[in-house]
Structures are given as structure tokens and as C-alpha cells.
């Protein structure tokens, strides 16, 4: 079976043309051909249709094989071009081959034409295939470039000598160049800072030699403008087809902004911590400075009252009681202020120690009793007979809870009794119950009565009584810290009962 072949014949002799066609037929082709013998006809034939091969006589009147060849080259058509000639010297043949001819065949050895055409077609096909794959490759490369160009981080690859084999726009821009300019050059061509360039080089070689990924979470470098940058770097070896590493692939993320934010955050945090520390220090100092004179006032007043400085008249005795009550209020306020500061700072250290219910009641024995008496109230303290002899917990803070509840009860009770009762509530909890015969607390107030001072600051008018408004808030917060809870029952005009339930076996972790 013959192979179809579209042949453009450049030949002035019809006879020669026939010989050529016959020869092709003999070689197994089924030629469909057109014969031209002028440049115009040749050009027209080239543009009109697609050809598989051009077979061209060397000498034509007013036209030559080399002219035809030049026209094919100009037209950018990749067509096998074979010269067939009667008289052709070796020098002409070489010139034709250099000009882009595929082959040349002597007219007296036309038998070579078939194989020559076959080889030419084969080569042309191979060339076309190569071109197609090159085009595909170029498309892919362009796509890859687009992918890395859209990335705002620096992306690049370098070979063993440090020459860039790949770079994205962001990276080239950082070097004040274009990607095209960058390729084939090294860091040293752009960055004047030798130390930095040397550092990059060491990193690259380390990756290539070790075949290991390198991650530098953050470090400081200098850019080409001498500006300091913070960067996060990832470098990976690229393994070639031979299994060896010849290149390093790098991604660098500029984290300068992030570092600046981090730094200002850290500064702000340090300032806040310092302010908080100063506040604590101030509170501690104030506390200390208040306690010493209060000690003198309290001690001497109590001594006066006890008759150490001689007998007192009844009004004098009454006055000492008032002074002691005032000191007690002031002290309660200082303790609450400090307690609130400690709670806010998360600095309350709860300890677990053994104590007796009586030791707890000492919190209100001396001064609170005097205070109650001064208000004309009866203060009763009771411990249930089935109460364990010793309890576990933090005595200091429990005393503060009790002192707050007791002074609160005294403050809001005009007449009658304030009763403190310590009992075991159930298997797991014991209770401090403080009840009074005071004015009671309206239902709507019961929900916010435990709120801290600062939260009720704006509505301070609802408090007609003296006090910081911290007492009950501290009671609630401390009780919660201790794993207990506070309940309140109250009836207007009848009185209130605060009950603090506390675990018999405290679970908070003992520190120190």
C-alpha cells in the first residue's frame, strides 16, 4: 500500500518532474504534487496548502534552489527541503545543507530520492514532536512562574555555585531587579553586605551537602538598602534526576511587621506588669504604713478601756468603745482592699491547715464584739455540738470571710441579734452561718449584692450605709476559690441569713 505524499516540485522540466514522481511511486509513495518554476508560483503554493516535502531543482531559469530554500526559511515553515540536481558540486551541496536543506540527490542517482524523503519526513516528525514538548514545557514553566509570582514571600532556587535558577517577582524586587536579570546571578551581585551574603551561602551549601531541610524560625538580616529585616526561612534540597542534590529551594517570609507587633505587645505587657507590680507594692506599703499607727490607736484605746491608765467614767468608756469600733471598720476596709487586690492579681495563696472552730471565731471576738455592743446588739457565737474538733482550710482567709459577714450583719441591723453559727451541713460540707434581725435585702438586690465594688460604682446611691462594697464580693470570691458556695435567704424587715458552705476536705492544691 502506498503512502500519500503531498509534494511541491520546483522544477522547470516536465520530464524531470515525471521522473521524480515515478521514482517516488517506486519508493512506495502516492504523490499528490504540484510543479512550480517561478518564485511567485512557489510562494503562492507555499501559502495555499500544507506540504509534506519540497523537492527542488537546483538550477532554474531566473530562480535557484537556494532562493527557494531562503523563501521557505523566511516563511517559518518547517518543511523537509530536498535538492535534486543534475550538476551540483560539493561546495554548492554544502552551502545548501547549511542554508537548511535536508538532503540533496543527483538526478543520475534518483534511486536515492525515496530513502532521502523517508529520512527527511522522519526527521521532520521528530522535530515537530520535540517542538511540541518544548512548547508544553514552556507553558508549564510560565504557569509555575505565575504561581510563584503571585506569592508575596520570597521564593528562589540556587545551584551549587549560588546562581539563581528560579526566582519570583517579590524576591527579584527585593533585590531591585527583575526575575530575568536575577537568573544566573548570585546574592553577591546584589547584596553589598558580605557577612549576610556569606551567611546565605553557608545555609545553601549546608542544605545541598546534607540533603536536609533547614528552617530558621527567625533571624535578623540586612536588605540591600541596609535596612534590618526579620525573616523566617525554609530551605530544601532539590534532588536531581541523578539522585544527587544540585540545587537548594528557598522560601523566605518577611516577619518584620510581626516582630514589631510582638515587640510592642511585649513592651505593653511589661508596662502593664510593672504598673500592676507598682500597684501591689503601693498597696502593701499603704497597708504597712496604716497598720502601725492603727496599732498604736487600737492598743492604747483598749488599754485605756481596760483601765491601765486609771479608771474611766462611763462616757469615757463609751468613747473608747467608739474609737475601737472605728479602728475595726478602718481595718476591715484595709483588709478588704488588700484582699480584693490580691484576688484580682490572682495572688491569693490558699493554704490547708488544721484549726479549731474556736480559732476561727477569734476573728470576731475582740473588736467585733465591742462593735456589736456599741450598736446595742447582741452578738452570739455558737458551734454545733456534732462539729468536728478540727477543720481544714486557710484560717486567715476564712477569718476574713467571717469578719466581713459579721460586720456586714452588724452594719445593717438596728436592733436585735447577730448570730454566728458553725455547723456541719452534710457529709461533705461544713458551714458558717451569719444571721441577723436587720432590715433584710430586697429580692432584686439579692442578685447583685455580691458584685464587686467596681461593678456597682455607678449606682453607689443605693448604698445608704458606709462601706467599700467589697466585703460581700470578697466573701463570694474567696468562697468560690475554696470550692464552696454562699447562699442568702432574706426577708424584708425580718432579717437575713448568709450561709457559707465549705468543703470538709479542701481540694485546692497547697502551695509552698
Amino acid at each position, binding site marked *: 500500500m502506498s503512502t500519500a505524499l503531498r509534494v511541491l516540485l520546483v522544477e522547470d522540466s516536465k520530464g524531470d518532474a515525471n521522473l521524480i514522481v515515478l521514482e517516488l511511486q517506486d519508493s512506495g509513495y502516492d504523490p499528490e504534487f504540484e510543479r512550480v518554476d517561478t518564485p511567485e508560483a512557489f510562494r503562492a503554493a507555499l501559502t495555499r496548502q500544507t506540504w509534506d516535502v519540497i523537492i527542488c531543482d537546483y538550477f532554474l531559469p531566473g530562480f535557484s534552489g537556494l532562493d527557494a530554500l531562503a523563501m521557505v526559511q523566511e516563511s517559518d515553515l518547517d518543511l523537509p527541503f530536498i535538492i535534486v540536481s543534475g550538476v551540483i558540486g560539493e561546495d554548492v551541496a554544502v552551502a545548501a545543507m547549511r542554508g537548511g536543506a535536508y538532503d540533496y540527490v543527483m538526478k543520475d542517482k534518483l534511486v536515492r530520492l525515496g530513502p532521502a524523503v523517508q529520512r527527511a519526513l522522519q526527521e521532520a516528525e521528530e522535530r515537530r514532536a520535540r517542538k511540541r514538548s518544548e512548547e508544553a514545557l514552556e507553558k508549564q514553566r510560565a504557569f509555575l512562574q505565575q504561581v510563584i509570582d503571585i506569592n508575596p514571600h520570597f521564593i528562589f532556587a540556587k545551584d551549587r555555585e549560588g546562581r539563581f535558577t528560579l526566582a519570583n517577582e517579590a524576591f527579584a524586587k527585593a533585590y531591585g531587579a527583575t526575575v530575568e536579570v536575577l537568573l544566573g546571578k548570585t546574592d553577591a551581585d546584589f547584596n553589598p553586605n558580605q557577612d549576610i551574603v556569606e551567611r546565605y551561602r553557608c545555609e545553601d551549601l549546608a542544605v545541598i551537602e546534607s540533603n536536609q531541610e533547614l528552617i530558621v524560625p527567625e533571624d535578623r538580616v540586612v536588605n540591600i538598602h541596609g535596612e534590618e529585616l526579620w525573616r523566617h526561612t525554609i530551605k530544601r534540597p532539590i534532588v536531581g534526576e541523578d539522585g544527587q542534590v544540585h540545587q537548594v529551594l528557598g522560601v523566605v517570609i518577611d516577619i518584620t511587621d510581626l516582630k514589631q507587633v510582638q515587640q510592642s505587645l511585649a513592651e505593653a505587657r511589661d508596662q502593664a506588669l510593672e504598673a500592676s507590680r507598682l500597684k501591689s507594692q503601693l498597696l502593701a506599703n499603704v*497597708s504597712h504604713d496604716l497598720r502601725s499607727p492603727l496599732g498604736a490607736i487600737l*492598743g492604747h484605746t483598749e488599754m485605756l478601756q481596760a483601765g*491601765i491608765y486609771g479608771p474611766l467614767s462611763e462616757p469615757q468608756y463609751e468613747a473608747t468603745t467608739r474609737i475601737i469600733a472605728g479602728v475595726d471598720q478602718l481595718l476591715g476596709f484595709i483588709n478588704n482592699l488588700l484582699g480584693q487586690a490580691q484576688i484580682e492579681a490572682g495572688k491569693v*495563696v490558699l*493554704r490547708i491547715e488544721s484549726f479549731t472552730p474556736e480559732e476561727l471565731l477569734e476573728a470576731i471576738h*475582740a473588736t467585733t464584739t465591742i462593735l456589736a455592743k456599741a450598736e446595742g446588739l447582741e452578738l452570739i457565737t455558737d458551734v454545733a455540738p456534732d462539729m468536728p474538733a478540727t477543720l481544714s482550710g486557710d484560717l486567715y482567709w476564712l477569718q476574713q470571710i467571717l469578719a466581713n459577714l459579721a460586720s456586714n450583719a452588724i452594719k445593717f441591723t438596728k436592733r436585735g441579734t447577730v448570730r454566728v453559727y458553725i455547723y456541719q451541713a452534710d457529709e461533705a460540707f461544713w458551714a458558717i452561718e451569719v444571721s441577723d434581725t436587720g432590715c433584710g435585702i430586697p429580692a432584686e438586690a439579692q442578685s447583685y449584692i455580691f458584685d464587686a465594688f467596681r461593678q456597682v460604682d455607678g449606682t453607689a446611691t443605693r448604698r445608704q450605709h458606709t462601706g467599700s462594697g467589697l466585703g460581700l464580693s470578697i466573701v463570694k470570691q474567696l468562697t468560690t476559690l475554696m470550692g464552696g458556695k454562699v447562699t442568702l435567704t432574706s426577708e424584708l424587715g425580718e432579717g437575713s441569713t448568709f450561709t457559707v458552705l465549705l468543703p470538709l476536705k479542701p481540694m485546692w492544691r497547697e502551695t509552698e
Partner: protein
Amino acid sequence: MTNDALSEKPLALIIEDNPEQATIFTQALQMAEFETEVIQDGQAALDRLAVVVPALVVLDWQLPYVSGDDILRRIRADERLTKTRVILATASSVMAGLLREKSDFVLIKPIGFYQLSHLAARLRSSE
């Protein structure tokens, strides 16, 4: 100088550098039937503790020269003083929490006359 061997009342050492405070402590402890002696600095306190065996020491935690901690440790290490009860006085509620395990009692300043007197009397009666 007090001779505790001849005295009927037990001896209480008040180690406190603030004279105002020392006066109040003295009166409170005398009311609780203690013989009292005031020492104003830590070194003098150590010297005195090497000689006498007090039933009770009221110890200010913040003393000049020798800290309350050093004195407390010396008392605890001295076999002669195993029966000596120590009441620590501190102005810091935070310290109070930490010190409670080390001493028999911790009182937070301001320490009332009645408060100390009642506590001392209770200690005496429980002897």
C-alpha cells in the same frame, strides 16, 4: 534584770523594735500575768535567748540586723527552748499565711491589746 528562776510568773520576751508597740505588748502580757522583758534588736535577742528560757516569745518579723526568721530558727534549734511558744507579729497578711506553719501563732498588725492579752492568757492556762 529579771531572774526567771526566782520569779513566780513565767517569762515573756518581747522582741520588737517599735517602742510604741512594745509598750502595748508589755501591758497586754502583764495583764495575762507574764513577767515581761523587751528587747529591741535581733542580736540582743539572740544573746538573751542564750541565757534565759522564756515561756513565750512575741517576735516581730521585721527586725533590724537579725531577721525574725533567724531568731525563730535559733529558738527551734535550741533544745532548751522546746517548750517556748512563739507568737509572730507581722504587718503582712501574705507573710502571715506563710509563717503560720513555722510558729505557734501568727498575729497580723495592728495587734490589739485585748487580742494579745486574751491569747497569752489562754496559752498560760493551757500550760
